[in-house]
């Protein structure tokens, strides 16, 4: 059984590369039972979205300045 530390590490890797079938399965089974890791999963996806939004924000803010 993988720990929350290992599962979140895998979730994080899954955002940056394609995981193997067994890795994806391990995540799926784990987050079904673990709300904290489930939260980590959705929140790191949210953070990605926020980071992209921040890029836009920065651009708009600098536009206004000039």
């Amino acid at each position: 059984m993988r720990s929350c530390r290992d599962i979140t590490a895998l979730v994080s890797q899954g955002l940056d590369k394609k995981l193997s079938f067994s890795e994806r399965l391990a995540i799926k089974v784990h987050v079904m039972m673990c709300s904290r890791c489930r939260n980590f999963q959705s929140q790191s996806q949210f953070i990605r979205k926020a980071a992209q939004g921040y890029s836009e924000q920065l651009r708009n803010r600098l536009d206004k300045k000039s």
Partner: protein
Amino acid sequence: MPNKPDQLSETLLAEHRPVLFRYALLQLRDNELADDAVQETLLAAWQSAANFAGKAGLRTWLIGILKHKIADHWRRSNREVVTTDFDQIDNQDGEADEEAFFMNNGHWNAGPTTWNDPEAALKQQEFWTIYETCQNNLPPKMAKVFMLRELVGLEAEEVCRETGLSEANYWVTMHRARLRLRECLEIRWFNQSKAKKEKRHA
């Protein structure tokens, strides 16, 4: 019109424009300057297309040119480089902080709570201030890696090439960056707004 190798077309170059722009913007902090640097880069790439060795590393090659253009800019403006230089990597920061997130057996120490309507946060100006604070609170090296991946949009292996990080270190760094950002946003934003709401209802 001189003959160019067919592997390097204008369209192919233009595809990389958004990534190059975001890279330049993070360093120059000015839309116009960033745009100029990207223009110059694409022009230089087009003119020296013959020097380009292979399709696979096109973006790496373009970023290499862009870095020179950015350095030129600093030299011209005679200014100290104050913004993030992605080349200078300080090693070994934040080595042990993963321990704080998990207990010895790998279980969460406290750990993520459920966030109420995160999408709504993206529409609030105050959220972006908090986001920026949290991002700035990352150790410098971690922030660079994170920004190259999530803000600029480079692939993991490109980030490794840019920062000289090994693949294993990259995974560890991104894992920590996400854990830290998540926790910071939770404390400074999501739990705050929850507390405010509870006060209102009390």
